[in-house]
């Protein structure tokens, strides 16, 4: 059990160590205001990373989530200004996101195009179409019942937190306990073997992308509610944050291995470290570099036991 979840354990240890250091040196890091800010800044990353975990477990990747996020956010703003009730806005944007994801998924699953190429193209197409349509203009004057989910600024974080936790818990449980979760792992682990066992691997791929799309839509709405305008360039670079968190959380880029708990821990570690640097007096310019270093350490830690294993097997074969 422990050896299977070694990655989750180490990321957890890193988080505890970081928090312990902060508690001693800069206890003000744990001030209510800062924690809420930190949390709100990462809710979107968490929700999308949960969906990205599905796609990466199935052996694919989606780098268009940042652009899809922007399209969904702007659409949510535009729709709410027509006076649509907030729940309808949320539902509509989730469907929009799911359709965008399903388009990626269909191209990958049925035309067997590499997902990195398909979603790279989609990233550019969505981003630049949005730029052209909005002419760079921000969506402004959002109606008050859209902002903060129509709740108060104080209760919104609780609601967003409940939603994020519910999604993460549902997916974590689903991956372990449903047939859908099982075939997701099987497809990513060995597509051919899964197909020979009667798994409809194309459908699995399509559904993983569509789920990620829907979650991207949800994240976009929840994030848009925090401000009274939506910039047309929202979500720039979001895909990198999301993929980094999933990778640090231990999901194999080649698919088949990983857990949602790991992803949650990855989001927490990468999300907490940036502001922590500011509190510790390190220049904010180091944030990205340190996040990058964490990713390298995480993937190198993955490779080491495997290399040792291969060498041991080779020695055994020679003996």
């Amino acid at each position, binding site marked *: 059990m422990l050896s299977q979840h070694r990655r989750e354990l180490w990321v957890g240890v890193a988080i505890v160590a970081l928090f312990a250091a902060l508690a001693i040196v800069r206890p003000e890091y744990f001030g209510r205001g800062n924690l809420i800010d930190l949390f709100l800044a990462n809710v979107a990353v968490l929700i999308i990373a949960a969906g990205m975990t599905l796609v990466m477990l199935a052996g694919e990747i989606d780098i268009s989530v940042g652009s899809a996020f922007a399209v969904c956010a702007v659409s949510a703003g535009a729709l709410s200004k027509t006076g649509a009730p907030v729940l309808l806005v949320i539902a509509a944007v989730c469907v929009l996101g799911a359709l965008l994801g399903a388009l990626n998924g269909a191209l990958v699953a049925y035309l067997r195009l590499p997902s990195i190429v398909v979603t790279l193209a989609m990233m550019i197409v969505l981003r630049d179409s949005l730029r052209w349509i909005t002419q760079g203009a921000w969506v402004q004057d959002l109606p008050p019942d859209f902002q903060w989910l129509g709740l108060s600024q104080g209760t919104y974080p609780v609601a967003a937190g409940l939603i994020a936790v519910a999604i993460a818990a549902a997916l974590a449980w689903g991956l372990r306990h449903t*047939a859908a979760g*099982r075939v997701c792992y*099987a497809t990513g682990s060995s597509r*051919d*073997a899964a197909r020979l066992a*009667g*798994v409809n691997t194309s459908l699995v791929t399509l559904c993983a992308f569509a789920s990620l799309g829907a979650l991207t839509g949800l994240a976009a709405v929840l994030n848009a509610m925090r401000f009274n305008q939506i910039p047309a360039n929202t979500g720039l670079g979001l895909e990198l944050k999301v993929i980094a968190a999933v990778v640090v959380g231990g999901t194999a880029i080649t698919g*088949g291995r990983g857990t949602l708990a790991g992803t949650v821990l990855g989001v927490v570690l990468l999300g907490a470290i940036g502001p922590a640097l500011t509190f510790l007096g390190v220049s904010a310019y180091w944030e990205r570099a340190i996040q990058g270093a964490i990713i390298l350490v995480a993937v190198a830690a993955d490779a080491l036991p495997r290399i040792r294993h291969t060498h041991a097997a080779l020695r055994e*074969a020679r003996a």
Partner: protein
Amino acid sequence: MSATPLLAANLITKSYAGVRALSNVSFDLHEGEVHALVGENGAGKSTLIKVMTGAVAADSGTLSVAGAPVAQMSPAASRALGIAAIYQQPALFPHLTVAENIAFALEPRAPWRQIDWRRRRRDARDLLARVGADIDADRLVETLSMPEQQLVEIAKAIGSNARVLIMDEPTASLSEREVQRLFEVVARLKSQKVGIIYISHRLEEILAIADRVTVLRDGSTVGTHAREGLHASTLINLMIGRELSAIFPKRAVALGAVALELRHLTCKAAGVRDASLVVRSGEIVGLAGLVGSGRTELAQAVFGLMPPDSGEVLVHGQPIAARSPAAAIDAGIGYLPEDRKQHGVVPEMAIEHNMSLANLAAVARRGLIDRAGERSQAERFVEQLRIKTASVASDVESLSGGNQQKVALARWLATSPKVLILDEPTQGVDVGSKSEIHALMQELAERGLAVLMISSELPEILGMSDRIAVMRAGTIAGVLSREEATQERVLAMALGH
């Protein structure tokens, strides 16, 4: 013919993971000679070639080139000594030109060296002329036909000053006329004093082209014979000539209704044409044939991996239109694939999860997996099939080959199939597991399953089958009953004699 052989292998022995692939094999080749190497699937031909080209190291025995012993053979050393091999599938760079491909073997490769394109083209043209090939050196290799690519391979081999040319099944994908062209090239090379080791399943080719023939059987040399006075039937006898050593747990079972029927099944993509076959409940039908005769492809066409172009597959009289494995599984067919690690199991998944993968519906209700039920199913199979593992939660990759194969088999038993297709079920499996798998096959037949077993091992085919269907060139060449079948008859049918 000079007295010192160009290449001599002396008392070569090689084992893979305790299984003896070659034992005390000796082989020599003279200048300007074609020396053919024949044997059944798994007789040790490939291993011998690998030893001679340095791809694998022999456990014992010596190699010498032109009389000089070679202490350690490696791929680089064998190239330097003038040994080159061409295989059934040309190993060229498809996106480079003919000249570039040839230059790769020809020119010393210092990365900063400037390329003399004119010389490169001229060299390529000269070499192509030497093998009598009329191919433009500037064409991309991917635009060449298979025989043209083979000629480029030969030109490349000669360009590296090969004195020994190993040709492994060079005619497998050639037409009759192309074979004649290839033979002309071989004759030309002979006159240039190149020694050729020629491997083929086509005995008539061997008899037409070889000066001497060495027969391998079960990793040992049966003998080396001059071509004069050799006949195909003599060769077949030499290739088999063994007693059935293993005891197979085959018992007669009362046969039931027809469970699987193929009617004129044709699948061009798979190279299967007009294959008809019947397997009854309780029956084990062995599917024999040489490597490349289309056995696996036939199984894949039945299982919906390569949907057939025409013809029918019927399970218990019902035509099934299996366009996908899922549809074939629904119709009651299970398929244990040949390549266990790639296709048979999901190596990174737990044993229990592998066993339920083909039939998640049995352990799940409305999409929710009953993990306790899944575990008890796995534990039942682990006990029934005597799978050696500490826990059903262990990853399949931690198991031995034989135990992995049992997990793959358990996956299909979990679907309660009516028809089970087993593709090389005991390949790469230790002796103990092998007889356990055989016993299990018999047990399944007694329970009324129809079993179609593909195997390259003739004793296994003869020992386990009620009837034997022999494939050749993508179709069923004939069917023999258990009583009529002998190794000679099966092999002769597979070879087309």
